[in-house]
C-alpha cells in the first residue's frame, strides 16, 4: 500500500465503501504515514467535522489495548503485498479449523495431565503444592498489551496509545460534566459550552502525539475544575 494507493482510495475509505481487507490496508497505512494521515484528517473535517469525542464505554485500559492490537494488525497488513493478503483471506477458514483442533488437543492434554497428577498424589500420599514462584507484576501502563511483538512496533504505537488514554479520561469527565450540566442555569451552561468548544477545537487541530496529549490534558483540567467546583470563588480558570 503506497501513498498514491491511499490517496486514490481515501474518499471511498472515508465513505466506508471499501471492503474490509482494503479498508484495513488503508487504515494501516494511515497509521504509519503522517502526510496521508493529515490529508485524511483534513478531508474528514470537511465531511462531517470532528466535533465530538468518542464515547467509550469499556474501561479505558481495556479499550486502549484492543485498539492498539487492531492498529498493530492493520500496520502489519499494510506492509504485506496484496497477494499475501488475498492468500491470508483464503487461509482463514483453514486456520479456524486448525485452531479448533488445537483447542481440542490442548483440552485433552490438560485432562491427561490432571489425571497423572492425581495419580502421583495418590502414590505419594500427599497433595501437590502449587508454588507461585513468579507472581505476575501488574503493569499499569496504558500501552502494555502482553502480546509478543517487536520493540520497534511497540515504540511506534506508543504515542497513539497514550493519546487514547488521555482521550478516554476526557470522555469519562465529559459524561460527568454533561450529567451536571442539566442542573445549571443558562448562563453557566453557555459559559461551559463556549469553553468546551474552545478546548475541543484545540484537541482537533493539535498534531498527533505530544501536542494532542497536551491539548487533552488541558481539556481534562478544565473538566475537572467544572465538575468539582460549584459556587467557588475560584472558577473554572483556576485559582486566580
Amino acid at each position, binding site marked *: 500500500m503506497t501513498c498514491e494507493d491511499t490517496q486514490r482510495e481515501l474518499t471511498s475509505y472515508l465513505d466506508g465503501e471499501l471492503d474490509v481487507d482494503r479498508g484495513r490496508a488503508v487504515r494501516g497505512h494511515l497509521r504509519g504515514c503522517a502526510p496521508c494521515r493529515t490529508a485524511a484528517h483534513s478531508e474528514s473535517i470537511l465531511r462531517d467535522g470532528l466535533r465530538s469525542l468518542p464515547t467509550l464505554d469499556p474501561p479505558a485500559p481495556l479499550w486502549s489495548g484492543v485498539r492498539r492490537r487492531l492498529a498493530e494488525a492493520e500496520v502489519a497488513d499494510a506492509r504485506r503485498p496484496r497477494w499475501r493478503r488475498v492468500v491470508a483471506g483464503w487461509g482463514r477458514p483453514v486456520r479456524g479449523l486448525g485452531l479448533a483442533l488445537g483447542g481440542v488437543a490442548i483440552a485433552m492434554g490438560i485432562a491427561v495431565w490432571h489425571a497423572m497428577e492425581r495419580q502421583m498424589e495418590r502414590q505419594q500420599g500427599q497433595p501437590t503444592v502449587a508454588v507461585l514462584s513468579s507472581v505476575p507484576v501488574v503493569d499499569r501502563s496504558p500501552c502494555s498489551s502482553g502480546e509478543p511483538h517487536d*520493540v520497534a512496533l511497540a*515504540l511506534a504505537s506508543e504515542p497513539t496509545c497514550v493519546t487514547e488514554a488521555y482521550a478516554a479520561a476526557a470522555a469519562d*469527565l465529559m459524561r460527568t460534566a454533561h450529567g451536571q450540566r442539566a442542573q445549571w442555569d443558562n448562563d453557566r451552561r453557555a459559559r461551559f459550552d463556549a469553553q468546551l468548544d474552545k478546548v475541543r477545537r484545540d484537541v482537533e487541530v493539535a498534531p498527533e502525539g505530544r501536542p494532542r496529549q497536551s491539548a487533552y*490534558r488541558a481539556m481534562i483540567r478544565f473538566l*475537572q475544575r467544572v*465538575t468539582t467546583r460549584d459556587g467557588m470563588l*475560584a472558577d473554572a480558570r483556576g*485559582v*486566580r
Partner: protein
Amino acid sequence: MIGDSRGRTVAVVVGCSAVLGAAANADPRPAVEERSRLEVQPSDASFRQVTLDNPLGDVRVEGYDGTAIVVETYKRAPDGGTIDRLRVSLIPSADGRLRIATGVVDGRDFRPVTRSQVRVDLVIRAPRNARIEASTAGGRLQVENMDAGGELDSSSGAIAITNVSGQLITHSVSGPTSLTQVFGSVDAATLWSDLVLDTIGGPKLVASATMGKIDGRRVRSQEIELTTTGGAIVVEAETSVRGHLVVSTLQGNIDVRVRRRGPVLVRARAAKVNLGPRVSEVQRQAGWSTAIVGSRSDPAAVVELQSRYGVVQFAIVE
C-alpha cells in the same frame, strides 16, 4: 548514535566504554550489557536546556556545578545483534540545547524482540542551571538538584523530583509522581496514579489526578490548587497573606490542615463538613459552611474546600 553530533559548538570527549558480554542461556532476562560514558563540553555558551527522550528505560538527571554534560548509557539486550539495534543519539544545537534520544533500528532483517527484552537506561549529569525536558514510557524518571525547572513526562513510569527550583511541569498517565523540595511554579498532573508533594514553595502549585490521590506535606505556595476526580486529598499547608488554597474533588474525601499566617477565610461544601475545634461562628448558607479565623480587619487568606460526594475535614494547626 552515540557521538553523532551536529554543530561546531560542542566537543565530545569519549570517556570510557566497555562491553560486557554474558553467555546466553534460558534465562529470559537480557544477557548482553553495554555501558558507555560520554562527556559533552560546551565550546561557546553554556548548556541552557537538555531534552531527553527515552522510551526504552529509566532516566536519571543529576545537577552539578560543572559546565559539561556527562551521559552514562546502560544498554541491555538478549544478544549482541539486538544491542546494536539500540541507539542513543546526541543532537546539540548552537543555541545551547542538547537533545538525547534513544530508539530502535527497525527492519525485516533483525530478529524480533519484545519490549521487555531490551532496555536502555540513561544517567545524566548536567549543569544545575540547565532546564530539563525529559520523557520516558515505562521507565522511572528522576531529576535531582536542578535550578532551572523543566517539563517531565512519563507514560507509566514513576516520576521523582528532588531539590529542584524554577518552573516545573510534570505529567504522567499512570506513573506515581513525587515532588520533594521544589521551589517555583509547579503544575503536576496524573491520570491514574498518586501524587505526593513534600516541601513545595513558590508562587503557584496546581496539581491534579483523576483516579489517584494527592498527598501533600509542608506545602507553602502562595496559590495552591489541588483537584481529583476519584481520589482523596490530604494536605498540610501553610497559608500566606492573601494566598488562596483551593481543594476540590468529585468523589474523594478531603483532609486539610493549615498552619496560618494571618487570618483565614474558610469555605467548605461536602456531603459532610467538619471544620475542627478551632473554628467557631460557622455560617451555613446554600450548602456552604463559612468561617473566618483570626482578625477580620486584616486581609485574609482564602481556603475553599469542596467534595461533591465525600467528606471534608479541616483543621487549623498552630
